[in-house]
């Protein structure tokens, strides 16, 4: 058998933990090979070993049948291995072209970077694989999807034959995901081989040939995708049965909690991104906002939570205007917010988990009295939430930084829900989490709904929107263009609505 890459019996330890324990992965030439496992199972670690960022304690790596020793990314590059990292490795203030050529720049005879030559080469690659990029745009100005294409171009520019994708779809919109699938197929057609890490079983079923499952650092085995199904994959991965359809009773909405009328919000560049939006959420229902990234969802949330000033229009919580109040006032009036970017907004990574649990309430009793903190009360609270929400951490004194993404997310959710807010805003609450964690979080959201909270769910995952919401508001170009019930629609229709193509019919669709 012709293997492009063989990783044999790899063992990689970190202080106190065996991240990879005797794992074997074999990548056939021309295949897309999935790597599946829970958060923290060791997938990224394994791939970082292959890419030369980590050195394994044991095991061998063969490339095209030859044993190799990959001690740094340069060697991996030279062996034709390229990696698209889970967190993009792009230099934000640089242009697309600069990022792609970085490290192997073409130069003219004065030692100057030959940008036109670079541009030509990039254009050729981009045409060949259908990777649309704007070569002169700054990374900070382009969409996440394009950033990912830049990452792919980076590997191709270096002549990669084997591409590693670490959770490429976690940050993409559905449209971008389908584009990526097309690109991956094109790559295979050109003779490349791909390793794909993803938590989304559907994607594995859609594009992969084979799948290696890892559980808690150990290799469970490799299956041929054509011979399996999502249920089997999920139980292989978690070690138990997982239900995909979230169990829930029909909602029983009560009084209006949040009312937004004719809201306008501008972004940092003073461009209107929310343009006359109306939205109502009632107690005891989950409203899902479906929409392609960049249609004003973030600005809407920031306006509701007080992180951004509104331009005009009204936001009322229980009939009290809250627009343009300070975030503190808004939080106190009963809004909980699970932010989209947990590292940037959700947590102070250098604070302990305990301290993070009281991030909005530290100044209230019993956590402090007369401005003096009561650490005993704080850590007791934290212990309680950690238990209730199954946050896996050595202790409440551990820094938030040391927790895995899933556990960080659970801690945030615990914190926000525990305050019993009238309105809970959940922005991409399950991004990057494994199916087990997703199941848990969805259950929590529905529990809260059943307790009579109003919940606003923003997600780019249609699955999630369809499964969890009681009502779906489709957002396009700064407005809610449709308001539909999940059981009365399907993904195709939602997709079209989100693309703005059925705007005129929106009225009909939403009865």
């Amino acid at each position, binding site marked *: 058998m012709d293997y492009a890459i063989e990783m044999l019996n790899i063992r990689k330890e970190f202080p106190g933990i065996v991240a990879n324990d005797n794992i074997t992965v074999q990548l056939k030439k021309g295949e897309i090979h999935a790597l599946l496992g829970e958060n923290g199972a060791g997938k990224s670690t394994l791939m970082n070993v292959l890419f030369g960022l980590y050195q394994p304690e044991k095991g061998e790596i063969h490339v095209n049948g030859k044993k190799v020793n990959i001690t740094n990314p340069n060697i991996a590059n030279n062996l034709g291995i390229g990696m698209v990292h889970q967190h993009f490795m792009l230099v934000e203030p640089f242009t697309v072209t600069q990022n792609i050529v970085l490290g192997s720049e073409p130069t003219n005879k004065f030692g100057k970077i030959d940008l036109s030559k670079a541009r030509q080469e990039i254009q050729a690659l981009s045409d060949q694989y259908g990777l649309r990029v704007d070569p002169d745009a700054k990374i900070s100005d382009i969409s996440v999807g394009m950033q990912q294409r830049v990452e792919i171009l980076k590997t191709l520019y270096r002549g990669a034959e084997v591409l590693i994708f670490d959770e490429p779809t976690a940050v993409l919109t559905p449209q971008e995901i389908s584009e990526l699938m097309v690109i991956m197929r094109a790559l295979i057609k050109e003779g490349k081989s791909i390793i794909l890490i993803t938590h989304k079983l559907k994607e594995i079923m859609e594009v992969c040939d084979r799948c290696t499952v890892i559980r808690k650092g150990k290799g469970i085995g490799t299956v041929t995708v054509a011979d399996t199904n999502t249920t089997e994959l999920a139980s292989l991965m978690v070690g138990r049965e997982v239900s995909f359809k979230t169990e829930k009773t029909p909602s029983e909405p009560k009084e209006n909690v949040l009312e937004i009328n004719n809201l306008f919000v501008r972004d940092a560049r003073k461009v209107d991104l929310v343009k006359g939006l109306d939205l109502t959420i009632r107690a005891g229902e989950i409203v899902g906002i479906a929409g392609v990234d960049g249609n004003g969802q973030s600005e809407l949330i920031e306006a509701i939570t007080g*992180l951004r000033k509104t331009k005009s229009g009204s936001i009322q919580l229980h009939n009290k205007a809250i627009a343009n109040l300070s975030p503190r006032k808004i*939080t106190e009036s009963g809004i909980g917010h699970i932010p989209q970017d947990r590292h940037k907004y959700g947590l102070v990574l250098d604070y302990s988990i305990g301290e993070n649990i009281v*991030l909005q309430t530290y100044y209230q009793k019993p956590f*402090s009295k007369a*401005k*003096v903190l009561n650490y005993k009360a704080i850590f007791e609270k934290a212990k309680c939430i950690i238990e209730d929400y199954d946050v896996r951490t050595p202790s409440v004194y551990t820094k938030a930084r040391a927790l895995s993404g899933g556990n960080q997310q659970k801690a945030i959710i615990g914190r926000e829900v525990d305050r019993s807010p009238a309105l809970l805003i959940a922005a991409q609450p399950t991004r990057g989490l494994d199916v087990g964690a997703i199941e848990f979080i969805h259950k929590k959201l529905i529990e809260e709904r059943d307790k009579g909270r109003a919940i606003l769910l923003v997600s780019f995952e249609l699955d999630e929107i369809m499964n969890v919401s009681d009502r779906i508001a489709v957002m396009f170009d700064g407005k809610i263009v449709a308001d539909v019930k999940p059981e009365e629609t399907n993904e195709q229709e939602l997709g079209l609505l989100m693309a703005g193509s059925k705007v005129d019919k929106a009225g009909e669709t939403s009865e």
Partner: protein
Amino acid sequence: MTSNNKLFGLLVPVISVIVGLLAGAVIMLLSGHDPIQGYAALWNGAFGDAYTIGETIRRTTPLILTGLAVAFAFKTGLFNIGAEGQVIVGWLAAVWVGLAIDAPMIVHLPLAIIAGMLAGSLWGFLPGLLKAKLGVHEVIITIMMNYIALFITNEIIRSVLTDQNTTTESIAGTASLASEWLQSITFYSRVHYGILIALLAAFIMWFIIERTTYGYELKSVGHNLHASNYAGMNVSKNIILSMVIGGAFAGLAGAMEGLGTYGTISVMSGFTNLGFDGIAVALLGSNNAIGVVLAAILFGALKEGAGEMPTAAGVPTELVDIIIALIIFFVASSYIIRWVALRFKKEEK
């Protein structure tokens, strides 16, 4: 693991000091001096008798405060190079009040001290404000504010506090921190009650930072602006507050000099260096209150002791600067000490 960390926390500075002193000995040998004689002189100069001990304490006092000033701002992620200017204006304001007001000690002394703190705060407020509202880098503004403080203070001494003289009158006894008693037991060193204020300030800093909601907010802003804003904290207010409190500590350091050590203020032809040394003290004390106190004592003792070295051992006083610099390097590079220690452990196994 935690006990290990604590052990390292103690071990690193101790090893650093020892290695720094050893390096100093080598330098003395290389430049033809007798290290034993040199260090004996250093010791005598710092702790040899009651007088030197008194002077060492006196020298330590403002260093504790400027160290706190820098450390406090660091906790909020700000670099206060402006402690120097804050010291100068604090000194000026304290002496001014000490001269201008006639009141019983119980009113006068606190008033003079508060004046020093307020002046320092004011000097910290402007960089804080510009940072918070306009995002102007505090490092440049504080550097500029140092020069402005120096020149304005000199002019005020000349034109307002005196009639074109270089030194003011001595402050009223009711505003003085000096103590006959302390002086008499230390052979007339200039040790004064300021050390108690400095230690109290260290305690206050510790308390604010570690035990109050203010500290919680300040540190949070220092770690993550966005999350702090998300959590409802007023980021601008915290940035300004941090510079203002830092400035108050530095202003207090100036008040110590004005009300304790000198009782006057003179036209300065250059910076006092108290603020700049405060940076080193803060960093050496890893920006926490207890660390700052210990680092200031080390600093004060070395600098005080240095004075004895040229006369008693012929060693230039600058040796002490070299030693302090090396100690700072070793503490900062504690990574290497940890690494070596880990090696040792592994070998033991």
